């Protein structure tokens, strides 16, 4: 029993030391608040950044971006940003391979999901980034923030 516990303590201590040592720079960046919005390394996904409601509203007003909704079909049907394209995360690999994003790679894309702690917008943004798009904005406030702000919705209320 003593040996069993000693082994566990050694393994856990080794893991903490190795994890902290190998990821030292990452831990420092985290402490500085770099990954507050989401776990995205800027050097790995240089074309993705997070935007606020005001920025999303501005892009919508200037018709300068394609909005992409990563929620399910049912949630999308219940209400979405006007003109948004629905690419549910579970269908994304198939849909993106099938050419469901017929835009030039320089086009600004705004990806959103429900808001709050939903994570599908980040996962979808990564997949789109892998397809070569280089101006992807993640609107973390998502549908909850958009609809609560009284901004245009489809179908109209």
């Amino acid at each position, binding site marked *: 029993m003593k040996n069993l516990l*000693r*082994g566990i303590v050694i*393994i856990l201590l080794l893991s903490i030391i190795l994890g902290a040592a*190998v990821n030292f720079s*990452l831990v420092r960046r985290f402490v500085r608040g770099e*990954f507050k919005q*989401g*776990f995205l390394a800027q050097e790995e996904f240089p074309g993705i950044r997070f935007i606020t409601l005001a920025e999303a509203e501005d892009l919508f007003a200037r018709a300068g971006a394609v909005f992409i909704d990563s929620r399910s079909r049912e949630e999308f049907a219940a209400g979405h940003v006007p003109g948004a394209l629905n690419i549910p995360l579970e269908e994304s690999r198939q849909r993106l391979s099938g050419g469901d994003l017929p835009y030039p790679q320089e086009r600004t894309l705004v990806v959103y999901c429900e808001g709050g702690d*939903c*994570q599908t917008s980040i996962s979808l943004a990564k997949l789109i980034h892998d397809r070569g798009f280089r101006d992807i904005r993640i609107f973390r406030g998502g549908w909850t923030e958009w609809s609560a702000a009284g901004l245009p919705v489809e179908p109209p209320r």
Partner: protein
Amino acid sequence: MERGRPSCGTTTMIRNKWVLFASRLAVGGLFLWAGVLKITDPLGFAQSIKNYRLFPHELAFIIAIILPWVEALCGAFLIVGVFRRSSALLVSLMLVGFIGLVALALLRGIDTSCGCFGSLSRKADLKLILLDTVLLYLTLNIIAPKQQRD
């Protein structure tokens, strides 16, 4: 327990030492591989943890930094036979945690990949729970002291 008399609790234990050795290699190899894949992409793994919508941001990061090393070390130790029972116990605890996490995700209707093998991860579903249960059974046999198996 009286020596030599089989007990109800041990009748389903694996007794063959070669099967146990193969179990150690299989479970160890799988955990070593899973750990290494996550060590190479800690942020991706942190995001996978967040996708379960159960852990606060900071905790997801800490888990993503440490857990892959626990997996890799336990896997390596199981293969080489060092800290065999300690590693098996930690692997069992992790498997129980994974099963609970996937079950909770299914109950809450969260559709996500498991995050278990980095970018090669599969969907968090019932099949994954079944796979983890088989691994848990194999691992519990490794923890059991020799006299319980003989």
